[in-house]
């Protein structure tokens, strides 16, 4: 009799064998599952990356008519201090006189250039144009430049956090 045959004869043990086999399988699955979870976690952005999630900027540093570009989550954000001769759009204006938009063309993701004499943004890739409010006025862009989530603390704007002004702006 070979060992295998011996084992097969051992019928009263079959059920216990099955149970043990399942228990071993379940046990191993838990371990592998936890290892995979730990591996999954290692790919999450590091604290230093998460620190870039919010950026503070003092709006009063931008002179009227001036455009400042700051980096938020790796993308450029345009902060334009509007003057009276620029297109008006109270529903897209922050703190009464600023346009704050993500400087990424809504067409294919190029970065539009500001043309101070025409007071528009012109996208070098496919000629899309946006007015001083960041609203598309010409070319392929399907929608205005996006407004980043923000919160106002006096003249300081916190990008990356949703304040009441931002919520009002996107709902309105």
């Amino acid at each position: 009799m070979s060992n295998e045959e011996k084992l097969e004869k051992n019928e009263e043990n079959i059920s216990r064998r099955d149970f043990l086999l399942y228990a071993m399988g379940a046990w191993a699955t838990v371990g592998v599952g936890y290892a995979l979870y730990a591996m999954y976690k290692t790919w999450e952005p590091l604290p230093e990356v998460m620190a870039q999630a919010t950026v503070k900027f003092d709006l009063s540093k931008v002179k009227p008519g001036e455009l400042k570009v700051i980096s938020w989550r790796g993308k450029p954000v345009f902060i334009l201090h509007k003057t009276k001769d620029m297109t008006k759009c109270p529903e897209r204006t922050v703190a009464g006189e600023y346009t704050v938009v993500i400087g990424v063309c809504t067409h294919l993701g190029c970065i539009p250039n500001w043309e101070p004499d025409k007071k528009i943004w012109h996208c070098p890739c496919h000629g899309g144009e946006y007015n001083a409010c960041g609203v598309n006025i010409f070319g392929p862009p399907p929608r205005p430049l996006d407004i980043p989530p923000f919160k106002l603390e006096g003249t300081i704007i916190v990008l990356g956090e949703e304040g009441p002004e931002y919520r009002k702006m996107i709902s309105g």
Partner: protein
Amino acid sequence: MKELKILAVLIIVVLIGYIGIEPYAKHVMHGTIPPPDFSYLDLPKFEPAGDPVKGKELFKANCASCHSLKADGIEAGMDKKTAELSFHVVPPDLSNIAAIVEPHFLANFIRDPQNATKNPKFAMPPMGYLTNDQIGDIIAYLKSKAKKELTGKEILQDACTRCHSVKYQKIQAITSKEHLKTYLGKIPPDLSLMGRAKEKEYLITFINNPQVLLPGTTMPRLGLTEEATEKVVMYLDKIADPHKEERKKIGMWVLIYMLIGVAITYAWKRKIWQKIH
């Protein structure tokens, strides 16, 4: 049975090797660390007592040209740059000094800093012309302004960061590198991982009296109290090993999990091997 014997032999051989290369070799290499002495009684006995009001005037007249005391709104008479040019080290703000330094040491230190710190090149000039009463008044004043409860990090910032950086905590040494090199001969080590590089007992004795463990070092003896030393060492340990608690907790769970595995696999082995002789 036979397998258990083999296992026993294996364990004994491995254990002999382990004891040889870890505890025994460490003992031969590093010896035992002498215990710290927080009484600082190698210095003349001095029990400072005095009048904080007089102390403030004395402080302004004798100390404030170099030291600030922000807790009482006193600014130092010289800025950081001037101080570095004259001393190659930035004199500390003394707001909390009385809370972290042993009073008896502090009195001796004011009188003769080079002797108290055991560093002949210590930057502060001796204040030997002050009388014992005057020193007592100054210390009484310092005591009246010092915070009672200080965290490890605050003590570190008061006692260590004049010369040491703690890169991983984004703490930069107050004195600039070039001046530290002139003052101490080299740039003092970064403290970010000191809690892992050295054991706790070593750090405590070293801070207590650097010359005992590293003869000739330019690190001054700072006369910290036992409590302040322990808090600073605990802080160093925490920043060097931030996952300690997590590690213990996960470790326990993993071991419990593994023991369950040992039980199941043992049952399985017995089942399969039952009929094999």
